[in-house]
């Protein structure tokens, strides 16, 4: 991979939620990966697979049950010094999924963007807010307007401006485009790519739209029921998917070409994601995998490198 130091290093991250009588929900179960500065790592998977939980735990919004998250070489759970904690929180920001719910309807755009700047004592005031608005492609005069005056795409831009306000190094984009129309999606993705080039940002891009993830990411991780089943550079993953789940996911992407789309074969993926509550050992994909063997039911497969920088967790592939 890369000789540089990773900006974010996730090691054996686990996040369990205690459901009282129902048991324990293993939302994220033993996930490890690294994100290098200036790169984008995409996380894909079906709803409920733990991608959002993973992103939020990395930002420290949830305390990790087990495992370690390093940001710039420091374990974030060990940050004791208040200054260090504030510094960390200034460096990591988030862009949320739903632009209609993530902006306070009673605050003006200026206030929304300024809130973080005030809390973190970022200098600049009004000039900086206008600069940020211009940076995300909005009119400078919008500072005194309220969120309801904007369309979905514009609101998402406000959300991006808010995240950028405190000069972060790392941004978690939690499905930033799923709520938007195709033409607006392209606008927002272009903006994110441009900002990354200009400001040297690092992204964790969470989405279930596989074609957009491919487009924006350098590396892509595929999650299934709280576990990372495949991790690789995005070109490699889309050209040579190894895990059966990844293959099925990729074959399910609808292609906007009637001839191809009507003749292609979709790999059958019957059933739905099982419940991550109290799941036992073994490969979690087993119930939907037609290649499953006895071994799959006994031990959880671990990520093994099958090619340069291409990791897969699957017993069948390991033995093949």
């Amino acid at each position, binding site marked *: 991979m890369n000789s540089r130091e990773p900006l974010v290093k996730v090691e054996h991250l686990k996040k369990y939620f205690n459901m009282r009588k129902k048991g324990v929900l293993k939302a994220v179960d033993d996930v490890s990966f690294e994100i290098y500065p200036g790169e984008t790592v995409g996380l894909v998977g079906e709803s409920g697979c733990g991608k959002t939980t993973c992103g939020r735990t990395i930002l420290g919004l949830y305390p990790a049950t087990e495992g370690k998250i390093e940001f710039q070489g420091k374990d974030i759970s060990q940050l004791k010094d208040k200054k260090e904690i504030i510094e960390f929180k200034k460096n990591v920001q988030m862009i949320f999924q739903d632009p209609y719910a993530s902006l306070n309807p009673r605050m003006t755009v200026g206030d929304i963007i300024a809130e973080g700047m005030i809390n973190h004592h970022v200098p600049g005031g009004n000039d900086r807010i206008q600069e940020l608005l211009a940076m995300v492609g909005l009119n400078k005069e919008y500072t005194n307007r309220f969120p309801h005056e904007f369309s979905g795409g514009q609101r998402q831009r406000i959300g991006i401006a808010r995240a950028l306000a405190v000069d972060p190094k790392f941004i978690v984009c939690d499905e930033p485009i799923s709520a938007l129309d*195709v*033409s607006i999606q392209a606008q927002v993705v272009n903006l994110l790519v441009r900002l990354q080039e200009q400001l040297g940002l690092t992204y964790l891009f969470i989405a279930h739209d596989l074609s957009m993830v491919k487009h924006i990411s350098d590396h892509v991780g595929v999650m299934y029921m709280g576990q990372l089943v495949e991790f690789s550079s995005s070109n490699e993953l889309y050209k040579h998917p190894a895990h059966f789940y990844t293959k099925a996911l990729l074959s*399910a992407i609808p*292609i906007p070409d*009637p001839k191809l789309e009507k003749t292609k074969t979709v790999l059958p993926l019957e059933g739905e994601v099982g419940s991550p509550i109290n799941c036992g050992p073994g490969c979690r994909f087993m119930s939907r995998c037609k290649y499953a063997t006895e071994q799959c039911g006994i031990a959880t497969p671990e990520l093994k490198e099958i090619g340069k920088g291409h990791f897969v967790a699957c017993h069948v592939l390991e033995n093949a």
Partner: protein
Amino acid sequence: MSHLLEVNNLKVSFHTYAGEVQAVRGVTFYVNEGETLAIVGESGCGKTVTSKAIMGLVASPQGEVKKDSEIKFKGINILKYTNKQWQDYRGKDAGMIFQDPMTSLNPTMKIGNQIREGIIKHQKVSKKEAQERTIELLKKVNIPNPIERIQQYPHEFSGGMRQRVMIAIALACNPQLMIADEPTTALDVTIQAQIIKLLKEIQRVNHSAIIMITHDLGVVAGMADRVAVMYAGKIVEEGSAEEIFENPQHPYTYALLNAVPNLELENKAELHVIPGTPPDLVAPPKGCGFASRCEYCMEVCNRYEPQYTQISKSHRTMCWLHDEIAKEVYGFDNVRSVIKK
């Protein structure tokens, strides 16, 4: 051949405090038996309102279907229906699958009762028969353990399962016309593929017509026989799926096609975007609705509305670039080859 459904010059407006929103501004199309028509467009272009008008669900007094509009189902103008006739028509002749499976089911009713409702309403059957039909329907949409499932409430179902229940409700009386309003937008790709497969299968067996409303061009490519592209309350281009995807003639259509990231494309390459936002339909533009966002906008586009140009028997588009004079000035084929890059 006469068409199963014919929509002629449909106009729907909503009266709001801001003024009259002209959501649908004169839409004409038809659907044949056993065929899938996809209506594609951005949010707010009027595609859902069109489908609601076909189901008679435009809420008055705010919503108004204009007088000279016509919706003919098997040759009869259904806009003249009385309330009683509408109730017979809904569910029996036409079924609708709504967009959001999370909110379209009644959370206080058992699944079985929600499906049975339509059967009891439209068919003279005993309760027991209705029950059997319900179980059969759930089997048809691939829900395991239907006998237990009918006793459960919507919150016990996942998103994909709920969408299947919605389809079962729409199917309950074997309607000849099914309207699917973004049936897969809220679902994951894998579940989406399952639902589309299911819809295709049902169509093959029942020989029903489907109007599919979506903004996902990939889904359209897999499902549709014909495609209508809507923009700002009008159909700007209509044709067979092949014609629309391989030979798009309206700048909006190819802008839409280009905005989808291609898996072959280089990573982080600039995606083609459609700048700006759709026009305000309270005061719709005098000329072409797309003019303000169009790369090929000419002076005439802002002044006069273009007429339909027939490209082939099934393919028509509404754009000034196809005018005789524009062809001379512009060299339209060149424009297209530039875009294709």
